[in-house]
């Protein structure tokens, strides 16, 4: 009986869902695609992930309670991409424990305050090196950097999209940038 009832309800608001989907999800397909691309590492998989994420978003469209639609969509894309990675590239998935180990290492003395490559040096790095260096960042650092420095989300939006506190966003972002600067500075 319950199933029948929910079916009837669906039919009444089916059009409404579609309209919501168009206004909440469709405007952010480009960002969704780029994030999926950075997370999966290639275009074909990015398309699959975005398509899958769109269906998930459509099914959950009534759970969107206002706020940043972009963060909401990107958090679904991110979760979909992570499921995809776990299934297809288990080695690429960085767990929180791994990440903490990385952060501990980085907090060791002498590692960061040493020499910061000069701004003039950084300005000469070519696109390929830059892209490679971003791709080599551990996933949680990479997604934070991509959302801020490529997509231009503010800290609150990034916190929502990646489901961590703002403090974590801040430390990940700083670490991601420092690593990136160190890597591209070294390559020259």
């Amino acid at each position, binding site marked *: 009986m319950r*199933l*029948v009832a*929910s*079916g009837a309800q*669906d*039919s009444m608001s*089916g*059009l409404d*869902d*579609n309209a919501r*989907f168009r206004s909440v999800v*469709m405007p952010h*397909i*480009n960002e969704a*695609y*780029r994030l999926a*691309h950075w997370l999966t590492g*290639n*275009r*074909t*998989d990015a*398309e*699959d992930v*975005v*398509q*899958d994420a*769109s*269906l998930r978003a*459509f099914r959950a469209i009534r759970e969107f309670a206002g706020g940043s639609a972009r963060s909401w969509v990107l958090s679904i894309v991110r979760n979909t991409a992570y499921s995809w990675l776990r*299934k*297809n590239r288990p080695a690429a998935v960085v767990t929180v424990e791994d990440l903490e180990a990385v952060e501990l290492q980085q*907090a060791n*003395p002498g590692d*960061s*305050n040493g020499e*910061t*490559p*000069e*701004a*003039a040096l*950084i*300005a000469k*790095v*070519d*696109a390929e090196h*830059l*892209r490679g260096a971003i791709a080599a960042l551990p996933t949680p650092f990479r997604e934070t950097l991509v959302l801020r*420095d*490529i*997509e231009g989300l*503010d*800290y609150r939006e990034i916190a929502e999209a990646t489901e961590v506190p703002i403090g974590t966003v*801040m*430390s990940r*972002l*700083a670490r991601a*940038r420092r690593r*990136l*600067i160190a890597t*591209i500075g070294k390559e020259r």
Partner: protein
Amino acid sequence: MPRSTTDDNSVLLVHAYLDGELDPANALGVTQQMGKEPALLAEAESVKALQQLIHERLPREEAPPGLRARIETSVGGLRRQRAQPSWRALAASIVLTAVVASSSTWFVVGSEPTIMVADSLVSDHIRALMAPEPVDVASSDRHTVKPWFNGRIPESPRVVDLTKQDFPLIGGRIDVLGQTPVPTLVYRHAKHLISLTAMPAESNFKVDRAPRTVKGYNVVHWIENGVSYWAISDLAPKELEDFAQLFRTSLTEL
């Protein structure tokens, strides 16, 4: 020189300052501190250079033109089914019925459920060969075929492109096993069609061994990643095995 917490904090504040995340009072504090500590100033300069670099070197790529259309199509498919008596709810109730009644449903009767599954799929294959079209969605583009399933069954199957290996994708259809809809992909090799059906391995269709042939059709069965696959064709056994091998070893991103 171990970094203290305050050092760490001021670094974070420099980044936040550059990102425009600080209120005026904190922003003032950071600029004053940068004036006093060259390391912080250097950090700020390199971060600004990095941001500039990213902005200049990495133009933001747009989603491929076909992607939006495919999303609209697959979501549109969902919507139509919702407007009908909620297809997914219906499917769920069918599965539920199958589970509840599993001791009496046909495919687990006796000790040879295997034969029954293969029998049923071979019948579907034959029926498809005799129908005007062996598929419900005709396309060689896996990006069309996969989403087509998405709106119709709970989980769409893995679809790989084997065109280069001479097994082009023809399309897909939904077969019905017992009372459960299952996705079937159709590939072609020379003039032979191959029906490839996927279903969860952990289901009522659990099998111990599969027959090699049914009614003259060759059958290859394997389980991978929790999915049970059945390939059926009048291809020679060796070629059908080759197909199965190619499918198994193909990465999805092909």
